[in-house]
């Protein structure tokens, strides 16, 4: 499965309004509900927050990847958000997060989307890749950068 099949423009926001971890989780989850990827906002948010309780998904380098695998996900999807000011996300390195990938995975079904997300996760270790995401200003640019993952062999 291509990453550009998981992420569509309607679940991307390049100018997040949120200022806190709680708000940004809700803002991105709302996009997923409105795009008909997630069936129940409150329950999905609760699952995402439960995962954060285990350990923060603020992985450092200004990136956070909140995720949940739950039956409240109708279609696997990847929401994207950017915050200019940065948001305190309890990140591992103490730095604010600017880039958010919210992963919504259904409880059952095919694992194709998980392969794609694994590739994305690996790619986030790459500094050049992260920098290009930090610099991107339009949805098209972000999708273009992410499409490089689809082309790569792992």
């Amino acid at each position: 499965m291509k990453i550009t099949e998981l992420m569509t423009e309607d679940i991307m926001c390049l100018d997040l309004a949120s200022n806190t971890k709680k708000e940004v989780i809700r803002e991105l989850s709302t996009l997923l509900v409105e795009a008909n990827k997630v069936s129940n906002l409150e329950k999905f948010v609760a699952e995402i927050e439960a995962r954060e309780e285990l350990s923060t998904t603020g992985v450092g380098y200004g990136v956070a990847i909140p995720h949940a695998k739950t039956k409240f996900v109708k279609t696997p999807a990847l929401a994207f958000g950017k915050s200019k000011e940065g948001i305190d996300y309890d990140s591992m390195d103490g730095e604010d997060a600017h880039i958010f990938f919210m992963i919504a995975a259904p409880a059952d079904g095919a694992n194709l989307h998980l392969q794609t997300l694994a590739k994305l996760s690996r790619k986030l270790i790459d500094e050049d890749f992260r920098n290009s995401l930090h610099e991107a200003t339009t949805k098209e640019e972000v999708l273009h950068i992410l499409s490089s993952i689809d082309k790569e062999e792992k």
Partner: protein
Amino acid sequence: MAKIIGVTSCPTGIAHTYMAAEAIEKAAKKAGAKAKVETNGSIGVENKLSKKDIEEADAVIIAADARVEMARFDGKPLIEVSVSHAIKHAKELVDDALAGKFTVYSKK
């Protein structure tokens, strides 16, 4: 060439498992060592370590927040850290591995 092996695993098995694996592989490559990292993710076990891999390995890095099958590493220099620690400190882990700073694991 020194060889480092590892296992990564995290609660959901969607993201951190793979970030940690990539971080360790990259750091090892930079340090001029061979690396093979088994990922225990929600896809299942990938890149599974063989008996030969374990025999050849000079050091083992376990970066896991979920259970990993450990008995197979009996007698190997090994370190256990959280998966987030490995993402953040892969370079230090690899340096310590190559400097022989790990303690030998005993399955008892």
